[in-house]
Each structure stands twice: as C-alpha cells, then as structure tokens.
C-alpha cells in the first residue's frame, strides 16, 4: 500500500537533492571544521556556504544565522538569551497557542518566578496586536509570538507587531518554524530580533535548526563550551545536516511560488471536497490568512484518534487535536484557546500538504473520508441536535 503523506507540519520527507548534498559529509568528508589542516578546514567553507543559503531564505546576512540542533533549541535559546542580557527585566509576553517549545518553556520560567503574559486569540485563531500594547511594561524583556500556527496554519500579524514594539525597544522573537519555506519571510522588511526555524519542516533531516539573531542584538549563548558558531552555540557542528539544511533552504526559496499556487490550490481542493462530502464538518482557523498547506477540519461528534486509525488503514497520514492523540488527556490547547466546542475539538483533523503532494492523493482522501465519518457517526451516541439518542427524549 502506498502512503499518502498529509502530515507535513509534523515532519517532511528529506528531499532527494538534500540527501545527495549530505552524502559525502557522512562518509569521506568527515573532517572537523575547527581543525587547522586542509582536510578539516575545507568543511568549514561548506558550512559557510550553507549559512548563506539559509540566510537567503529569510533575506538575512549569513553572519546572523546560528545553527542549532532543532527548532526547540532555537526557541529556548532565544528566550533565555533575552532574559540573560537584561537580568532586571522579568516579564515575557507570548500567546496561548504557541508550540510547546515556547509555551512549556514559559511555564517553566513562570515556575522560576518570571512573569508571563499569555495573550488570548479569537475564535478564528487570530491575534489582536493591540493586546500586546496593553501588556507591555517596564519589566518586559521579550515578546515571543509565533509566525504561523502549526495546528491551524493561521498567520499572525508579525509586521504590525514589530512596528508596535520598535518604538519601545522591546526585543521580539518569533517561532517561524512553520512559516519559513511556506510563505515569504523577510527580516530586512520586518524588524524581527530573533527567529527560529527548523530543518525537518522544510525537507531537511531531523536534528538541525537555526536561530536568526539580528546584527546588533545582544546575545547570550544557551549551550556553552567551544568557540563554534562564533561562540554563540558550542558543540561540534552537525556537518552533514547543516549542509542538508542549506540545500533545503535553497530549494525552499526556489519553490516559494509553488507553495502559493500549486500547494495552496491542492489544499483548497481537499478542504472543499471534504466539506462538501461530510456533513457537520467545519474549518478551524482564519481561512483568509493561513499557511498555504494547512487545513484543520473538525468532524463533529466523532473522535480524532478513531478517524486517524481508520485513515491509517488506507495509508493516509494526518494528525488530530483530540485528547486521545495528543499524548495528554486534554485535547489541543490551540483549539481550546480559540473556543472551539468540545464536540468539534475531539474530532479535529489536520491535513498538511507539501510540494510533493499530488492531486491524485488529494482526490483519494476526498473519496475515502466520507465513508469513515459516516461509519464512526453511526457508532456515536451523539448527533447534531441531541445530547443522547432521540429515544430518550
């Protein structure tokens, strides 16, 4: 059975070109870039090439890119750095819908005595930038707000937020792990101080990420040791993956237009197809302001894990925000923050496409999904207008 992979916000397949670029660095080119000899030193140059490629994707200067082990490390580094360079300031502003890499780290900081403001979002997952203005004070060290949400794909008004903060001299970090490579991100036009990105969301392998740190931004390293990355991130470089991330960034930049056109059209085709074929289904999130590849759909009165497992029988891969599939007993914190009723949260499915997704794959899902929904609804004691079965009423 062939796999239909519609879970690209979770991770992506490594692009063949990326794997090809990495291969020599996993075998014959094994030198340490910090070595004095040519054999090692030549690797250093390749790493700098990769740095330029990553910088190119977000229109940054290569010197502003720090390689890390993943998006989570980038996020943790940014938050810690902001607190370290200004120990008098003890307040962080973020949102209720951040990725756990930011949100749980903020919970951790909260327990350590820092003051955290979690901004709410509206029913479409949208953020009102005025709330930030109301929340900042003299103690605010950092505002950390994601570029686009991983569950709904909703894009936050980062441009507007940075303009609000610019006059006040408050540092701004954005977790752009889901946005980079899917929509244009330009740090020359938007006054972002720090930005996190991750390799495995843009067809590079897992275990590599980067943190953009604007020139002139004071910075404190998170991992301390050797002089690598100009003392901004210690530890011998994950050479092959750095090269892979560079290649992936180059490919992503070249394919940005395709995301907006082809991928977005396929997503819409999937979404409209499913909504037309399945009653009591609705889209979560602002459809006017979304990543081109993400569709988060609630199928009411049925449970997400059950849907996923039935889809899995057909080789279709997706994600759910239901309690059963979240690893916690509570359903998605993002959908709850949006006020989506439990009837819908438990049955939410996220489909996330990539440039490798085909129309045939999308059509197959549109074909299969209504049967699954119908079957599970027949199993369910709940329905549109009833608490229980009509018999009891």
């Amino acid at each position: 059975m062939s796999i239909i992979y519609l879970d690209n916000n979770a991770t992506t397949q490594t692009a063949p070109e990326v794997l090809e670029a990495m291969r020599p660095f996993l075998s014959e080119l094994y030198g340490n870039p910090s070595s004095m000899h040519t054999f090692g030193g030549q690797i250093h140059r390749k790493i700098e090439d990769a740095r330029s490629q990553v910088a190119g994707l977000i229109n940054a200067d290569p010197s502003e890119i720090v390689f890390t082990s993943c998006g989570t490390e980038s996020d943790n580094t940014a938050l810690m750095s902001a607190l370290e360079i200004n120990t008098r300031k003890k307040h962080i502003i973020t949102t209720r819908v951040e990725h756990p890499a930011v949100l749980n780290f903020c919970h951790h900081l909260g327990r350590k005595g820092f003051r955290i403001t979690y901004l709410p979002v509206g029913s479409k997952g949208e953020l009102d930038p005025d709330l930030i203005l109301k929340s900042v004070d003299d103690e605010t060290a950092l505002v950390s707000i994601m570029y686009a949400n991983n569950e709904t794909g909703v894009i936050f008004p980062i441009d507007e937020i940075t303009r609000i903060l610019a006059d006040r001299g408050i540092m701004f970090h954005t977790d752009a792990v889901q946005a980079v490579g899917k929509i244009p991100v330009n740090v020359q036009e938007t006054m972002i101080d720090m930005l996190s990105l991750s390799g495995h969301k843009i067809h590079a392998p897992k275990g590599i990420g980067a943190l953009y740190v604007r020139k002139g931004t004071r910075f404190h390293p998170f991992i301390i040791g050797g002089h690598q990355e100009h003392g901004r991130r210690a530890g011998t470089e994950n050479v092959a993956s750095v090269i892979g991330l560079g290649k992936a960034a180059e490919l992503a930049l070249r394919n940005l237009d395709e995301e907006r056109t082809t991928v977005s059209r396929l997503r819409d085709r999937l979404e409209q197809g499913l909504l037309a074929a399945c009653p009591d289904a609705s889209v979560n999130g602002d459809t006017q302001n979304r990543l081109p590849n993400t569709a988060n759909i609630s199928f009411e009165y049925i449970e997400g894990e059950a849907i996923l497992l039935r889809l899995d029988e057909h080789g279709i891969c997706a994600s759910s925000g239901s309690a059963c599939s979240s690893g916690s007993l509570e359903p998605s914190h993002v959908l709850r923050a949006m006020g989506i009723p439990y009837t819908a949260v438990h049955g939410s499915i996220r489909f996330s496409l990539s440039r490798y997704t085909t129309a045939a794959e999308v059509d197959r899902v549109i074909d299969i999904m209504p049967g699954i929904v119908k079957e599970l609804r027949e199993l369910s004691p709940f329905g549109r207008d009833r608490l229980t079965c009509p018999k009891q009423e």
Partner: protein
Amino acid sequence: MTAQAKTVIPGDCCRQAGPKSFKTVREYSIHQLSCLRPIDLTASLCNNGLMWEYTDKVKETFLKPKNVGEIPDADAVGEVGSIVCGDALKLYLKVDEKSGQITDAKFQTFGCASAIASSSALTEMVKGKTLDEALQLTNQDIADYLGGLPDQKMHCSVMGREALEAAIADYRGEPITRKEEGRLVCKCFDITEEKIRKVAIENRLTTVDEITNFTKAGGGCGECKGDIEAILRDLWSLKQPEKPLVVKKLTNLQKIALIQDVIETEIRPGLQTDNGDVELIDVEGSRVVIALRGMCTGCMMADVTVKAIQAKLRELVTADIIVEVQS
C-alpha cells in the same frame, strides 16, 4: 450558534444542572469550555504513538466492531462518560425476564479506537450471561479479551464495566450511585473519591499515574494529584495491595446486615464504655451514614471516632466504605 437554554453562572453550574439543562450537546460543550477548564497545559498536536501499542485484536475489533447501534425496545440502558471528557458509551441490553439472561447487547460509543474496541468486547462478553454472571466481569476481563490495552487506555475498559453496572442498575430499578454524591476529586474529568477507591481496589492500583490511566483523574490540570496520593495512602495503609485481594461481592442486603453486625459487636461496645453510642442511619453503595449518640455528640474527638469506625468497616466489610455523619 443559538443562545444557551438558560442562564448559567460560571463555576460548578453545569455539573449541578447536568447536561440535560442544555438543548443540544453542542451548547453543553460550548458552555463547559468557558466554565470548567483552565487552559494551562499544552496538548500538542503530535501523535504519541499509542496507536502502535494496540494489539491486533484491539485494531481488528475497532475496525470491525460487533453489536453496533441501539436496541429500540431495550430492557436496560446504561450511559456513562461525556463528550467533554472525550469518551462516552451507551449500552443497551435485552434481558429475558424469567432466566435473567442477557439475550442481546448493543452499544454506541464516542471515543478512540480502544474505547470502541472495549465496547464491542463488552457486548460480546455479556451476551448469554445472566445479569449476576455479567456483574462478575471486571474491567481487566475486558482488557484481557482484547489481548491487553496500553496502560494509558485502561480507562476505556473501566468505562465498559461502568456502563454495564449502570445498565443492570437501570434494569433492576436501583438508583444509580450518582456522580455528584461522592466527593469530587478531579474537576477536569468529574471523578469522585468513591470511583478512585473502587477502581484502585479492583485493579490494585498504587500510584497516581495508574489512577490517571484507569480513571483519567489527575490527567487534566493535575491539581488533584496530591489528593489522589492521599487517597491511595489512606486506602493501602489498611490493606497491602501485594496480598491477593478479594473484593467481596456482597448484595446490598448482605452488606447492610454485615455493617450492622460489625457496628453491634465491634464498635458499639467500645463507645458505650465511654458513655457514647452510634446508630446506623443508611447505606447507599459504599456510603455509610451514621449518627453519633450519647457522649459522642459534640465530642471534640468525634472526627477521630468516625475515622476509627470507617477503618473498622473497611477492614471487616469492604475496603471502599466511606463513613459520613448525618448532619
């Protein structure tokens, strides 16, 4: 979205009023969202891989469940869980009046794969059994039937067992021990102390994590974890879970007789030497209501006395007894 059926005050309102005070399940669920749950935990959208811990039997049963649907003229209906908590099961039984045999069983379930598989297993297992035989089934039997369930999914088997109890109580016209009557421990999932004790005893659970796996209690905001720990400490300080533990299956009449006997022979004589006394007022499930008499009324040590009575009853009757003083 239509307006809510009636004005409700945020807080514990919907638990008291119950789901029936809302017109539709959607309204109820919207209300609960605003009223009950703090959003302080991240439940991220990553699949935790539990799906791959399912046995083939669970998967097979989930993909092709048996006995799905309702029995329009059912003799007994048992309903447990809620859409807010993420799983709910409605069990229908057809019972032969003369033999007390379950001739047909069907179910409707909202929930994950293991909830659906557990429901299907339950209906298969009870068919052909008499009601008394069916009551002997434990949640572990349901899990065993499926070749085992992942630890975190054991609550699905507990839900099956509860639905069966509820259906049989419905058939016998017994009042179902209503949730609201026990002391509420887990506010996120509406779990009472009574249920925690019962499940802990039946499955010999000793840790908070196990309680969460079997009942979900403590799996939301986590505020009640200390409370659960205290309950477990209290429970197992009386009986060691390592020992083979037989939960006595007493009928209500037998239980009341035994409680009366213990009070007469073991408790009253001791109290009477101090000019005190105790009277049994009522027994409802595992709740034993007593009234203190004589010198015990208003005694500063009354709390200690009640604890001692509870300990004695738990030792000699059933370990899940909760003693309450009539107010």
